[in-house]
């Protein structure tokens, strides 16, 4: 029998996980990756929230429908001439009575290199198992819930929305280019078709996976020297004990419970 035994049912364990999600805070990553045929630079931030806990003996916390809230910014540059053919204004010939008949030269629009910035925010839900790991980290006891494997993220809906947002961003970036107007719709279509859902998923998937791979929630953190009572004046010093052992597990009886065991010494 351990010196101290703590048990929490699934609702209490859920609160513990939600607190750990909040403590984890907002994570940020950046990098570059393939967006279809283009190379995109990206930065992303994400935080986790919600989900319901199912405790599974002997040491698994299953978190169902955990929400990964993310904000993604990416931009990619390309020579527009590679997407749509250069556009030429033909000679315009006119007759002006006091000048005579004359013609302008042919003028070809050399499309520029453009950069399309895209911002997108969304929530993706996933279910994953977390295994319990109680360990001493320096002077601190930790109980971590560590994700098992990498959950499968359903991104098809988000990818379609991002592609639509990309189309809007492309239209905005292109609209300022002189003479693009009649070709704008075709150019946007060509850009989104070149990328496609697959291209967006190919960028989004690895980015979001960075936030869930190895995901660890710390559900317990106490110093090894545990303060029982603080000092109360010069005559009553602080009372401390030592946490010699911490262990975590899941027990199954008539309900599933998260168990935390502690052995202490004076």
């Amino acid at each position: 029998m351990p010196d101290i035994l703590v048990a929490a049912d699934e609702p209490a364990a859920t609160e513990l996980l939600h607190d750990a999600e909040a403590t984890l805070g907002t994570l940020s990553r950046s990098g570059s990756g393939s967006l279809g045929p283009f190379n995109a630079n990206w930065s992303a931030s994400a935080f986790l929230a919600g989900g319901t806990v199912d405790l599974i003996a002997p040491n698994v916390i299953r978190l169902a429908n955990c929400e990964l809230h993310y904000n993604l910014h990416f931009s990619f540059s390309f020579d527009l001439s590679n997407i749509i053919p250069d556009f030429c204004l033909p000679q315009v010939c006119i007759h002006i009575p006091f000048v005579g008949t004359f013609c302008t030269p042919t003028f070809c629009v050399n499309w520029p290199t453009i950069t399309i910035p895209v911002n997108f925010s969304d929530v993706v839900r996933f279910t994953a198992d977390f295994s319990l790991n109680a360990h001493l980290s320096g002077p601190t006891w930790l109980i971590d819930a560590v994700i098992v494997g990498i959950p499968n993220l359903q991104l098809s809906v988000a990818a379609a929305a991002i592609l639509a947002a990309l189309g809007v961003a492309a239209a905005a970036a292109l609209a300022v280019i002189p003479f693009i107007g009649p070709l704008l719709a075709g150019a946007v279509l060509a850009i989104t078709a070149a990328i496609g859902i697959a291209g967006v998923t190919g960028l989004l998937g690895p980015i979001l996976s960075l936030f869930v791979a190895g995901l660890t929630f710390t559900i317990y953190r106490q110093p090894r020297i545990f303060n029982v009572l603080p000092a109360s004046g010069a005559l009553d010093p602080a009372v401390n004990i030592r946490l010699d052992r911490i262990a975590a597990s899941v027990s199954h009886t008539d309900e599933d419970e998260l168990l935390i065991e502690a052995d202490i010494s004076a």
Partner: protein
Amino acid sequence: MNTLDSRFCRPGDTFAQRFSEPGNYAYDFNLPGLPPFGHANRYSINVKGAFDPNKQGKQHFVTVRREGTNFVADPPKLEIETGDLVLWSTNEVNTSGFSISGKSETDSFNSGDMVRNAVYSHAFGSPGEIEWLDANAHGPAGKIIVKMPKTDSAKDMEAFKETLAQGAVIIINGKKADKTKVEIFVGQTVFFAVEKAEGIAITERL
């Protein structure tokens, strides 16, 4: 940038001058709006012969290019007949635009101060309503309505491309323009032709 301004000619713009007086015209690029002094006068147009207003003159093309930070005219020298027309244009995209002026012993020309038999053309690259006026405040003004063409189908696109070869002309005489409103499609060209005036610079009202 596709700004309407005859003082800053950019790709899609042309400046044309019909020479009705013989003489040797020395010209160069100048800062718009300023008198053409301090010119290097690197370029010349030698105009010969007697002027016949009923005779259709020839057209001569001068291409304006960048060499380093300077504009250059190609060809640098022209030998033409009176009544001929010289047209300057450029394909240089990353500049603020060129302005040229020149003079002979008896005559002069200036793209930023058009007086006689001069034409500034501008191809409009974006839809909208543009109010134009004389930057030198001599009176002429008007509105250009630029519409987006229908290009949903290949047939629409073909029809649109055919319109690009058609231009609209606004004739300025004295303080007046013959049209106060012109409607065109994106990509079409408007010609501002100065028959005779005090010195016109076409620009866009901001």
